[in-house]
């Protein structure tokens, strides 16, 4: 044990302190940009399949999964080398996915097919396909792994999937064009953002009943242009940071009162986001301006923008 500590200590001496990386998919460059969370610079750019969007890491961060939408594949990359190890069968046009807590099953939204595909990442086989609404996109999994959510953009619903049976057990209507979903409060609540509806709907996970709805208002921006898309919760689950698309702002929402406390100006058409390791900074992808905004979470201020590839879309943290 002691030896182990010593080795770790000497390793950390040998290698300069390296807090972590933010991995960003560039939808119209077919690349990934890797940002060092200390220096706030792009340290690597890796080639991917066509139109990379959703991105997530395996539990031990030894694999990165990438939705290469126009290649109709989920690619598995070695994050140490940037080498594509293999493709997973994904169904057509995979846009977004979520990795089950078992670290074994990917739930993939197939945007052109109105299907959610379940893939076993070890056997590389499709386990199930579940019919959902038109243009599935947002994906979420409950912390206990029992429920997966797919939101469908044109059908305007959150579809509740029982992961035991791979069947739908509820379908709940939300406002127009739902884009993203997240469980919070230990899985007790499900939040769903509606891009065109301009709202986030909160559901009680136990009953699938609506608990509340929040809307956003930015001075000088027409309400039609305020379009909530990606969002993330702080680890204490007290706040949510919500990307507002072409409104070019991120809202800071009090997750207890559902009230907006602040709007932070970021790059153009802000899409998705990821926190760094200690959640001190938040990195947002800005599709139109082709950059990533770094937000100081405590100060609620944008501190830097980092040029990445064309149309950055997804973001994920790696220690």
């Amino acid at each position, binding site marked *: 044990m002691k030896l182990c500590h010593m080795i770790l200590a000497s390793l950390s001496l040998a290698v300069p302190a390296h807090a972590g990386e933010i991995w960003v998919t560039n939808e119209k460059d077919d690349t990934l940009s890797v940002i060092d969370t200390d220096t706030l610079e792009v340290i690597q750019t890796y080639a991917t399949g066509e139109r990379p969007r959703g991105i997530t890491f395996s539990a031990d961060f030894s694999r990165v999964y990438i939705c290469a939408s126009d290649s109709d594949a989920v690619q598995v990359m070695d994050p140490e080398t940037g080498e594509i190890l293999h493709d997973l069968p994904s169904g057509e*046009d995979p846009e977004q996915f979520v990795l089950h807590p078992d670290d074994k099953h990917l739930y993939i939204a197939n*945007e*052109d097919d*109105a299907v959610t595909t379940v893939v076993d990442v070890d056997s590389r086989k499709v386990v199930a396909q579940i019919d959902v*609404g*038109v*243009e599935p996109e947002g994906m979420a999994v409950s912390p206990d792994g029992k429920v997966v959510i797919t939101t*469908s*953009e*044109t*059908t*305007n*619903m959150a*579809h509740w999937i029982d992961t035991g049976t791979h069947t*739908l057990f*509820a*379908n709940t*209507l939300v*406002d*127009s*064009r739902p884009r993203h979903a997240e469980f919070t409060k230990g899985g007790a609540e499900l939040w769903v953002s509606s*891009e*065109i*509806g*301009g709202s986030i709907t909160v559901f009680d996970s136990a009953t699938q009943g609506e608990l509340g709805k929040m809307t956003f208002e930015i001075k000088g921006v*027409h309400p*039609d*242009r305020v379009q909530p898309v990606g969002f993330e919760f702080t680890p204490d689950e007290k706040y949510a940071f919500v990307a507002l698309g*072409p409104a070019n702002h991120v809202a800071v929402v009090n997750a207890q009162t559902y009230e907006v406390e602040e709007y932070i100006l970021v790059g153009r058409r802000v899409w998705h986001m990821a926190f760094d390791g200690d959640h001190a900074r938040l990195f947002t992808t800005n599709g139109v301006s082709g950059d990533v905004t770094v937000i100081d979470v405590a100060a609620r201020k944008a501190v830097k923008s980092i040029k990445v590839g064309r149309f950055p879309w997804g973001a994920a943290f790696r220690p």
Partner: protein
Amino acid sequence: MRKFAEIFMVCVAVQMSCSLGVAADVALSIGYLEIKQSRPPTLSNLDPIPEDLGLAGAQTGLGDNATTGRFLGHSFDLQSGIVDVGADHVAATADMLSRTPFLLIDAPADVLLAIADLPQAKDAVLFNISAGDTALRDTDCRANLLHALPSDAMLTDALAQVFVQKRWTDLVMVSGTYPQDVAYADAMRRSLTKFGLKLGQEKTWAFDADMRRNAAQEVPLFTQPLGDYDALIVADELGDFGRYLLYNTWVARPVTGSEGLSALTWSPVIEQWGATQLQNRFAQEHDRAMQSQDYAAWAAMRTLGEAVTRTGSNDPAILRDYILSDDFELAGFKGRPLTWRDWNGQLRQPIAIAHTRALVAQAPLEGFLHRVNELDTLGLDRPESRCEVFE
């Protein structure tokens, strides 16, 4: 012999089983009626008009509605009828109205009005998906007739905003002689006045030569007397001669209007706002690109679907009220919610400014402000419209 024996009826039933529905079962039948019009010949046959123009959009919209409806116990079916040129459209319409009060109609303005005025159509919800005539949204409006296609005025207002923004203030216009060309030119003049622009010289296209052979020789001479200008507007709504003006004008200036830089309801070059998904879905189903009239029919179909989803009703009065209410919004792949003007039944929507290769801009352009909704800088705003039957 039956008078409308030439009517061709197709039934496409989309009945989805409902295993998860929580709401009561609701079925909605929608009729699609095409009144064929004779079309004058054009100089080029490069762009044939698809046989299923409009109907294809309705079918894609039906599929979207059905996929959504199966989760709620709502089913939709589409019945389409085609009335040949000169055939009795009244009988065909009456027949369709006896089966459903919800019709999508591809017809010229006068026929649309005749249909809307039929006693059987009194409580119907009719969608105009083909006629841009501004008068239909103005003095000729009807309470039972909604307009999914933008008015000519919306399109020309969109272009006028581009002229203002680009400071193309010195404008000339070449117009064709068909009624559609005349209507477009009228709408353009109105838009230029609305946005404080002046139209310089105008010329009428009166050639009858085949421009595929000699446009290069004739267009420079035809446009030489126009002198210098910032942009040449062409009113050629049937696609007859306009294509030969590009790169052939005496002075090197942009061509805009019906050709060149155009204001469009929809275009295959739109890929923003998730539009690629709709474009792909449409192309897969119909083996061609989606056009403006397809989009209008899709939007009308989705409007009905959205209204049924949110109200759980198939009652025409309830659906019409909901569609015209503040609660209604449709995600139409144009970057902002689409809604219906409650003063004349026009679908409020952004307009694409595009050429055949790319989207150039989307109207309303930045800086054109409105006290309620910037989209109402396009077309007849509430104070302008003389439509009274909606109030």
